[in-house]
């Protein structure tokens, strides 16, 4: 591992030391929690706004349109204007709805994505949570979001949301398997579940290159299954706007709707970040074998840039196929999972286990 890459842990460590010198350890931890929370909140909001803008621009270019171009330069402030509009909108109370759950649902969705966000390694040493079961943790907390969607659909006391929630439940529960198995492929390769460990194992090459064809297949399966898990097109059955008007959030308005909207985009980021970390080496620079000169040049690019480049590449791919494909039907969706993705990824795991046993991977 090259030492040229800037290690953020020295920065965070110095902050920690400074805080500890000023106040008692307990207070220091509390302050750090507040700082991290604030930083994450701001990052979360900005990222959501930017992703919405990005999606609009990408689809506009694909569709021979201009996209948002009125508010601010190139329409950069358009999403902020939309956010202000959503904040000012009336929160329509639904008669005969279960109000407690109705209000709770967007928060559950948001909290689940927030928890998953915590485990994302943004750059070298820039980690909030680094468990030795990082991959498993992200899978676990992201599975909580579906609860929010389910109770959102149910507590609206409306028919389209209920159908949307049903679809979403069936979809997420089944696609979680494939996401897990495709991530498991790399866990088998790298021999660790910790996200930092997986990144370390890619110092001499990303798993998508090192892992032969099985890793590539796992990557494709991961892309498809995770797109399905975050309810994005072509798997956006839960909110299929031509069938169910808006699916599970039909009855939501104003900022509560914005929460669902934001969570969807942040989930896309999390999934892309996870894919980039596990398959494309996370913040690890691009290295080619023994080309020392080339590798050193690559090391000069900051690790945070590498991370975001890879993440946004995956986000672009996800957007690309959202704006190309028609939506699947619910039975086809389940067929795709149980007849294609699951057998393929299971076979893939076996193949990878064999490769690892024979020490054929690099």
């Amino acid at each position, binding site marked *: 591992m090259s030492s040229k890459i800037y290690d953020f842990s020295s920065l965070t460590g110095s902050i920690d030391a400074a805080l500890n010198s000023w106040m008692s350890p307990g207070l220091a931890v509390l302050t750090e929690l507040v700082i991290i929370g604030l930083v994450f909140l701001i990052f979360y909001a900005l990222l959501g706004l930017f992703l919405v803008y990005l999606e609009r621009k990408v689809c506009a270019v694909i569709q021979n349109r201009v996209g948002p171009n009125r508010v601010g330069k190139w329409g950069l402030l358009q999403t902020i204007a939309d956010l202000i509009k959503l904040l000012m909108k009336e929160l329509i109370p639904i008669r005969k709805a279960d109000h407690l759950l109705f209000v709770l649902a967007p928060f559950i969705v948001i909290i689940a994505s927030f928890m998953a966000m915590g485990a994302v390694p943004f750059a070298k040493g820039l980690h909030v949570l680094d468990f030795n079961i990082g991959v498993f943790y992200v899978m676990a907390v992201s599975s909580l979001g579906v609860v929010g969607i389910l109770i959102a659909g149910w507590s609206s006391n409306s028919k389209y949301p209920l159908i949307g929630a049903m679809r979403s439940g069936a979809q997420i529960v089944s696609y979680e398997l494939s996401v897990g198995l495709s991530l498991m492929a790399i866990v088998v390769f790298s021999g660790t579940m910790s996200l930092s460990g997986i990144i370390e194992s890619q110092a001499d090459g990303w798993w998508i290159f090192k892992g032969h064809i099985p890793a590539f297949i796992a990557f494709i399966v991961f892309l498809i299954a995770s797109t399905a898990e975050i309810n994005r097109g*072509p798997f956006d059955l839960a909110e299929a706007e031509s*069938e169910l008007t808006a699916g599970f959030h039909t009855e939501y308005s104003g900022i509560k709707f914005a929460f669902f909207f934001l969570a969807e985009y942040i989930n896309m980021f999390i999934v892309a970040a996870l894919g980039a970390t596990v398959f494309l080496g996370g913040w690890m620079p691009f290295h080619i074998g023994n080309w020392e000169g080339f590798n050193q040049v690559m090391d000069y690019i900051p690790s945070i840039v590498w991370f975001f480049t890879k993440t946004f590449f995956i986000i672009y791919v996800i957007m690309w196929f959202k704006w190309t494909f028609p939506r699947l039907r619910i039975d086809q969706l389940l067929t795709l999972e149980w007849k294609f993705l699951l057998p393929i990824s299971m076979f893939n795991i076996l193949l990878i286990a064999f490769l690892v046993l024979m020490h054929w991977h690099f």
Partner: protein
Amino acid sequence: MSEEIIKDVIVRENEDYIINMGPQHPSTHGVLRFEVCLKGETVKYLIPHIGYIHRGIEKMCEADTYQQIIHLTDRMDYLSAHINNEAVCMVVEEAMQVEVPERVKYIRTILDELNRLASHQLWWCAFGMDLGALTAFFYGLRDREHILDIFEESFGSRLLHSFNTPGGLMHDVHPNFQKRTKEFITYFRKKLPEYDQLLTGNIIFQERVKGVGYMSREKAIAYGVTGPSARGSNLACDIRKIAPYGAYDKVQFNEILMTEGDTFARYQVRMGEMWESMKIIEQLIDNIPEGDFTAKMKPIIKLPAGEYFKRVETARGELAVYVVSDGNKTPYRMKFRSPNFSNLFVMNELAAGGKIADLVAISGSLDLVIPDIDR
């Protein structure tokens, strides 16, 4: 409302789960309401409710002169406005025994086909959108813009161009008309294969539409389904072939027929018709004869007392116009047999037993234009 009534509508075991698709719903393309009864995701039956935009066009016709009727027909099937106009004009011309100049026939036919192309393009976009392919929507609209520009240059309006008058046309087409139409055809011949790559060949699309909403030939006849929707069930019902009008007897074109009868067959018929329309336009565009743009007509048209009937092929099927005249300058009774009205009511037969998503695909494949149903 009492608790009891609400409870009746709501799901319980072995009870119907009824949802209202429409009058405000993205998939009905207008103010049409389907009362859909579901069992899980499966449609048990559906009842179309119409009348949300009934304007009484047939009754209004009784108070209008024959020239004035034209602009009302624009507003029935607004996507084939020109073809609707032509139907009324032809019935008047037949009653008055006026022979329209050849030039008018040629131009009318070309405009019919351009209108059909524009309509099918819009159908393609909307169908893609129904299935969730939003990019298709914009590609279709992008190409339709070219046709609308041609229309605007010649008629001054893009959608509702009351361009026909009994006896001919309002005025002559724009001098650029031939050139721009030919440019458009060369342009669209390049773009249409893209439609196929984007949607037709797509495995998700094919899975969504193949075998969905099967309509047998007998059912099509029984419900009076016409147009591309019926031709997808191997029912040869093209008025352009059966009773050629305009310049259709002078051109070579195929009536696209499919035997499968499912949504994909109806889709393919329309895609094929786009190619055929371009073929027809290419055959005619260079041979428009010189001459007058209208036949000599009296300023006040009084149809001789009697009944008159004429039918044309709009982009959605057979539009028949039936006029009863008592010799006055307004019709005694005017009846339009609009294609969408008949096409709509086969919906229950096609969608029952399918999924909600199929219902959307089927209603998209029938290409319903709601103002034409309600009139």
